């Protein structure tokens, strides 16, 4: 009898421990994602400083206003429909449910709408610790895409036109890419084994090439190109501010990449006792720590070698992260360093190539995020081929392959470039894209902002040739 009682007591204790562990996991997951949100807001502090520093005195505040408004409009629009798109369309159109049972329009209606039954998961709910923090992390991913585009178009875009573009990019275009390539039911994953752990393609490349589509219709700043087609360098008013902004973006990316981890204890966890990627494959924060640090270092060193320019060095740090982001879970650190170094090396030549084709990308966003994003996606196809792309074994689930990653890269390019070009073209038709010439020459702060950035300071630095003869 005593033995049976002891056995029963042990079972009760085990059950209590299991229950307590579950609660602890839930609270851990909630806290984990909650903390990624302020970390990712640091990305926006960085983009704000970066863009304002890269603007001339006469445009410094309007660049800041644009960036702040992008963030402000991204959150509600992602709440209204972006979150719903992510859950609704992983299998493509028309939004059929996928094999993992967490996708499709019916599922999205049930959990991601701000009205009807789904609204219970879109607000305070004592039985749901996951939706709000997971939504928050994704909303900040969305805001990051808008900020990437924001820097490229400074000093000549209209505010409302820009916000419309930011909404299309942040609450729709990249969300479709995420649904297709960053979801257990995503058709790029289940059919082609696309693996993009840290969103090199589906965030960075989509945003970068969206910006390219916009830049084609927006045109260069007045004075950027000479009559013979040669480019001028238009210096921003505060390089140190830009460089510190870039460093802040790097800080924030620790939150971004941390938020790409699926931890135990929330509704969409793959496991109850270990972390995974969004694909259900294993990952540790140690893996991220090794590879992000080596990626940053490799990118800086690669870009320093030929540029010696702190702007490009810190852009190289970003390029280092982005070029390795797809495989941060499975690269060896020295391997990540070499890939990041190569990204740092090619960064400036790629930006020059674009500039020589008449594209005025004020901060190099198309190159840093677009070109290097796709480079990272393809690199993983070369080195990571054969890895099971989802939880399971090769044969049961698709494996990473070069062809699969190239297909993913093409889809991410199109999901960025096409909506960016089409929507900006429509805005241009309606006169909502570019500010009037007189206002651009006078400075956009005079037109848009009832305040002065540096009221006691003088004029802008002189414009000089972008590629002076050696």
């Amino acid at each position, binding site marked *: 009898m005593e033995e049976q009682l002891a056995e029963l007591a042990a079972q009760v204790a085990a059950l209590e421990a299991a229950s307590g562990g579950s609660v602890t996991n839930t609270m851990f997951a909630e806290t984990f994602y909650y903390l990624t949100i302020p970390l990712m807001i640091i990305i926006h502090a960085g983009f704000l400083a970066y863009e304002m520093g890269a603007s001339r005195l006469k445009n410094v505040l309007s660049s800041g206003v644009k960036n702040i408004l992008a963030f402000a409009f991204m959150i509600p629009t992602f709440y209204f429909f972006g979150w719903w798109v992510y859950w609704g369309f992983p299998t493509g159109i028309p939004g059929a449910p996928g094999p993992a049972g967490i996708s499709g329009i019916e599922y999205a209606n049930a959990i991601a709408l701000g009205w009807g039954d789904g609204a219970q998961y879109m607000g305070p709910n004592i039985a749901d610790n996951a939706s709000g923090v997971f939504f928050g992390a994704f909303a900040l991913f969305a805001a990051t895409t808008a900020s990437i585009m924001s820097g490229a178009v400074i000093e000549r875009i209209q505010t409302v036109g820009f916000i419309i573009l930011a909404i299309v990019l942040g609450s729709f275009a990249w969300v479709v890419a995420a649904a297709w390539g960053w979801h257990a039911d995503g058709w790029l994953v289940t059919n082609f084994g696309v693996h993009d752990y840290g969103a090199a393609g589906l965030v960075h490349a989509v945003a970068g090439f969206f910006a390219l589509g916009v830049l084609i219709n927006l045109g260069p700043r007045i004075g950027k190109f000479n009559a013979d087609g040669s480019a001028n360098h238009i210096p921003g008013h505060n390089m140190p501010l830009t460089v510190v902004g870039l460093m802040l973006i790097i800080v924030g990316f620790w939150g971004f990449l941390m938020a790409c981890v699926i931890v135990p204890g929330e509704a969409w966890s793959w496991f109850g006792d270990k972390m995974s990627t969004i694909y259900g494959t294993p990952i540790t924060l140690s893996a991220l720590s090794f590879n992000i640090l080596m990626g940053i270092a*490799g990118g800086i060193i690669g870009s320093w070698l030929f540029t010696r320019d702190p702007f490009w060095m810190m852009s190289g740090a970003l390029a280092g992260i982005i070029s390795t982001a797809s495989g941060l879970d499975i690269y*060896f650190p020295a*391997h990540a360093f*070499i890939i990041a*170094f190569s990204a740092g090396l090619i960064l400036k030549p790629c930006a020059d190539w674009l500039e020589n084709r008449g594209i005025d990308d004020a901060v190099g966003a198309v190159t840093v995020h677009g070109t290097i994003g796709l480079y990272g996606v393809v690199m993983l196809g070369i080195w990571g081929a054969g890895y099971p792309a989802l*939880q399971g074994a*090769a044969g049961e689930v698709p494996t990473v392959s070069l062809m699969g990653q190239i297909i993913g890269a093409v889809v991410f390019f199109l999901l960025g470039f096409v909506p960016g070009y089409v929507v900006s073209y429509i805005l241009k038709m309606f006169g909502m894209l570019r500010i009037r010439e007189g206002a651009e020459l006078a400075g956009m702060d005079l037109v848009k902002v009832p305040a002065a950035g540096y009221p006691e300071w003088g004029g802008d630095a002189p414009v000089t040739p972008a590629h002076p003869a050696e």
Partner: protein
Amino acid sequence: MLFPYEEASWSAVDGAMFMGWGTSLPGLTTAIAMAICVVVLVIGQRSETAKAKAFDKL
């Protein structure tokens, strides 16, 4: 194919899971990364010295 286990299955993974574990790749990439650091420093020193010399006559 750099998956470090004979069976390409996540259930087989019980330790290191980076590309090339168990092959010479980690050592090779570490050596290359070290060489990159040294070469970049050498090039950096040479070019900075050359540029600095240009100011000697000023």
